[in-house]
């Protein structure tokens, strides 16, 4: 079994860029949960981290928008944002082109994934790495699901992508950790930023923790947009992790709406099912 760890976390740029503006009583337990996520991941002794993200126009645009993409390079750069604004310094993140190539070949058996030998990370990957790999010591394989430019991939395909990732991870000798990062309900980068539908979030997380495939795939984009905003489309990343974990149940380490961060901040781990 080469997939050794699965988890999810939030990635909103305010988590680092506006860190001190959140109430301490929320900020500290959220940071503690990310530390716990990191500790549990490290305990599984992973050789590489596959991070399924929902990028925000750092690499892909509507001239050629892949539904699914996986990086295939020996290093990546990020963040694309002003480092002073995000409060994360620019750095070169180590990758593993050979590992990526082996994973991509297997994923392609089930999902027509694009590959990218260049990839600039935005906050969607840099914020999780800031907490989970602060010393830049782990090889990273970025994966992306288009959650920004409709038409968007249907949720059952996001599930299939997660299953394909699992099958690919299980075929390589490396020990792979998997992190999915996306928002629950949020209206990011708009005047509505800070609006959070806590009830919707908790319902989604309940389905996710139970790894209830049918319930997770029952959302429509229309209802998600109405109740969870355009940011809600990012549930695809979280759904793919549930699929990759193959029936494993989860533990929610933290959830709380933090409006100044523009999202319900989340950290959770999921058992790896057989």
């Amino acid at each position, binding site marked *: 079994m080469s997939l050794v760890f699965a988890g999810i976390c939030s990635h909103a740029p305010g988590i680092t860029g506006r860190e001190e503006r959140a109430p301490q009583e929320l900020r500290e337990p959220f940071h503690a949960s990310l530390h716990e996520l990191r500790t549990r991941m490290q305990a599984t002794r992973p050789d590489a981290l596959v991070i399924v993200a929902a990028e925000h126009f750092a690499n892909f645009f*509507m001239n050629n928008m892949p539904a699914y993409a996986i990086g295939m390079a020996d290093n990546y750069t990020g963040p*694309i944002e002003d480092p002073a*604004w995000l409060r994360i310094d620019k750095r070169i993140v180590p990758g593993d082109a050979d590992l990526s190539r082996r994973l991509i070949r297997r994923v392609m058996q089930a999902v027509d994934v694009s590959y990218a030998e260049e990839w600039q990370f935005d906050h969607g990957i840099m914020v999780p790495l800031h907490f989970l790999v602060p010393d830049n010591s782990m090889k990273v394989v970025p994966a992306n699901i288009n959650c920004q*430019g409709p038409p968007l991939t249907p949720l059952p395909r996001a599930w299939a992508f997660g299953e394909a990732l699992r099958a690919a991870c299980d075929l390589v000798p490396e020990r792979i950790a998997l992190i999915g990062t996306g928002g629950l309900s949020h209206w990011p*980068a708009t*005047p*509505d930023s*800070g*609006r959070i539908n806590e009830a919707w979030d908790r319902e989604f997380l309940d389905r996710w923790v139970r790894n209830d495939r049918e319930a997770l795939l029952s959302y429509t984009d229309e209802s998600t947009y109405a109740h969870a905003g355009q940011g809600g489309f990012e549930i695809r990343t979280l759904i793919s992790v549930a699929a990759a974990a193959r029936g494993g149940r989860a533990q929610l380490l933290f959830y709380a709406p933090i409006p100044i961060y523009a999202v319900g901040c989340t950290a959770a781990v999921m058992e790896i099912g057989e």
Partner: protein
Amino acid sequence: MSHYQLSKFLYQLNRDDRLQAQFREAPQRALEGFTLSDEERAAVLQPDIGLLYVLGVNGQILMHFAAFCGIDWNDYLQRMRDGVKQHGPVRAGLYAMTTSPDEKVVG
């Protein structure tokens, strides 16, 4: 089509250090090759964040551009509210405002 060109220019600007340097030095020249309306061109050059928002620039692209322009978070949110007040509802895309211009959610 020019809305697409507007978003594409900002997308490229956000991710390209050399284009950013050129934009700081000679913004008009950086825009060469992009077919923008006069309104769109002026909104980029000013920069008029409120108008760019109303024109339908994707919020993620606009947020990164505002950061590049050194606009802080509260100011960014307020400029979008002011833009809607001045120019009317967002004309395109998914990042429409769901609250009223005078309703401050946060920031």
